[in-house]
């Protein structure tokens, strides 16, 4: 959404983590049910992005809910009829049953230890700190972490972040395909044509970048 117009002012007073009880439940249900869904964190983000724009622009946790329903359908936890019933707030009759569910103890360990995406370096990084690079004009129909507002823009590498799981591959189920990750600084002058001395720094994977 970086750089889009029309969303108005930010409301700093809207600082609650959750607005309603259902937001807490859907947040936690998504984490607990993740084991039964195909994919990974990147797949989850891809599912959010695949929602129709009118759904995507609903509230944050409505997006989580709608993507979860779609994920349950994909994993055959529910069929089409059951999906429609759920969307209208009905609970369909029992049909299938899971072999197991994640326990509170497992969830405690998961949230407390995390899921690192750093991997062993597979190839030496192509760029070094100080290198000038251009963000490529890539437009895959699938998930990418290359924001539109930097495509074609010139920036400078400010840090090497190691080798990380490549979301563009991981989200499609094509494997982790780890790639070097860099912090790249773009001046606001370059991004927006304004006269400021401000900058935006993004973490970008090597395939997103080309040497100037």
């Amino acid at each position, binding site marked *: *959404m*970086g*750089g*889009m117009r029309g*969303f*108005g*002012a*930010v*409301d*700093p007073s*809207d*600082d*609650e*983590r*959750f*607005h*309603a*009880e*259902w937001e807490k*439940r*859907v*947040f*936690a249900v998504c*984490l*607990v049910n993740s084991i039964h869904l195909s994919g990974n964190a990147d797949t989850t983000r891809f599912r959010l992005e695949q929602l129709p724009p009118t759904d995507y*622009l609903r509230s944050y946790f409505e997006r989580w809910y709608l993507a979860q329903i779609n994920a*349950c359908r994909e994993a055959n936890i529910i069929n089409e009829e059951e999906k429609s019933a*759920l969307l209208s*707030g009905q*609970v*369909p009759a029992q049909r299938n049953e*899971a072999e*197991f569910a*994640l326990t*509170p103890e497992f*969830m*405690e360990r998961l*949230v*407390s*230890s*995390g899921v*690192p*995406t*750093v991997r062993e370096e597979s190839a030496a990084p192509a760029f070094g700190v100080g290198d000038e690079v251009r963000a490529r004009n890539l437009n895959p129909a699938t998930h990418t*972490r290359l*924001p539109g507002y930097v495509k074609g823009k010139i920036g400078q590498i400010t840090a090497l*972040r190691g080798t*990380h*799981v490549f979301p563009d591959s991981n989200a499609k189920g094509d494997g982790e395909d780890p790639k070097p*990750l860099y912090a790249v600084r773009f001046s606001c002058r370059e*991004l*927006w044509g304004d006269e*400021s001395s*401000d*900058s*935006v*720094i993004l*973490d*970008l*994977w090597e395939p997103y970048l080309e040497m100037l």
Partner: protein
Amino acid sequence: MSHDHEQDPPSEMALRVKALETLLTQRGYVDPSAVDKVIDHYQNAVGPRNGAKVVAKAWTDTEFKKRLLENGTQTIAELGFIGLQGEYMVAVENTPSVHNLVVCTLCSCYPWSVLGLPPSWYKSHAYRSRAVREPRAVLKEFGVDLDQSVEVNVWDSTSEVRYLVIPQRPEGSNGLSEAELADLVTTNSMIGTHVLPPVSKVGEQL
């Protein structure tokens, strides 16, 4: 659910989420006590007090701050703050000449293990779209009016790297203990949407 809510008719979303959780529970996919555990974790075990402790230690221990800026992940782990959405941490320091601001334009990535879950405004379309394009205008909406001589660095959390802003230590805070300093640190100051006021003025802000 609180009794207040029970008196109101449940919203459409409340019904839909209840139906989903009921189905997943009845069919054995989800253990409701695991759902409770996750909610409890993010309401009570982790939150911005974790980040505030990191900041207060950085203010009082130069060696710690040096390590924190060089290797955020390991140094924050020294205090035990590890976990989901904090696997790779980078700390960035506000100075008289540089102000850091953190956003995620692609979704709403946020360092859960040090700050808990994000405030709603952080997830809003307005913040996600505008923080990179007009950071100073956004900062003004938070009451932060920076001098033109201060450079703004906006960190867009496009990867699994998560950012923690070390705000400038407030004026007049000399002599305070690490714990007292941690009490001064606000959530927004660690995202970059707040500048901590001088200590004598803290009362006026309440």
